[in-house]
């Protein structure tokens, strides 16, 4: 059972200078993601930054984009939709908090690099083949 999630901008609630960004929201912010059975648990998207290394954020805060409804689900039973069982469409709105009420907060980041205790099943889930298990398990654990 897998679900395709699509965000549909509600342009009545989005300022004109953000329409272009809203239109790109689905592909660029991963609206077409496949998250199994999961529906978005958070109606609030978060922003993440690191001024020095944008790819490795250190701070976060609630972002301006929000899911406005509980979503509508459609059974994906059309020919050619064999990759998904269901399509869920959520209404997307734009409602930034005032800058003074929305400080950046430290983001906690953890890197799991201790492989010695992982089971064969967990290693398989990581994409490893049995020939690679011992090599990866014997690696030194690397700190963050």
């Amino acid at each position, binding site marked *: 059972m897998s679900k395709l999630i699509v965000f549909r901008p509600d342009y009545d609630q989005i300022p004109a200078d953000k329409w272009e960004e809203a239109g790109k929201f689905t592909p660029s*912010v991963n609206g077409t993601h*496949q998250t199994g059975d999961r529906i978005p648990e958070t109606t609030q998207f978060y922003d993440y930054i690191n001024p020095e290394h944008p790819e490795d954020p250190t701070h976060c805060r609630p972002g301006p984009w929000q899911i406005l409804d509980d979503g509508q689900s459609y059974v994906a039973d059309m020919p050619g939709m064999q990759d998904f069982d269901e399509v869920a469409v959520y209404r997307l709105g734009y409602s930034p908090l005032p800058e003074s009420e929305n400080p950046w907060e430290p983001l906690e980041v953890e890197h*799991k690099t201790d492989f010695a205790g992982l089971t064969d099943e967990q290693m398989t889930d*990581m994409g490893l083949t049995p020939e690679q298990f011992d090599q990866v398990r014997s690696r030194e654990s690397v700190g963050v």
Partner: protein
Amino acid sequence: MMAKPRKITYRPATNPSRCDAMAKKYDWEQPQDPKLRYQANPTDPILSVNCGFYGDAEFPKSRMDLTQGDADE
């Protein structure tokens, strides 16, 4: 609210589709931002991507050897 957007745990994998599969199997939530979902790990020839998940993203302990239980906590 189960998701914890204020913490991101990275777990290595061989490619991004493994991140998606682990999220589904273990019920971990992935960040919306693709930069955080799939962090390239170019120095590792095998585990070439770090998968980002909200919260702790712990493997269930039940089927693990409990003698190694909390070593990393």
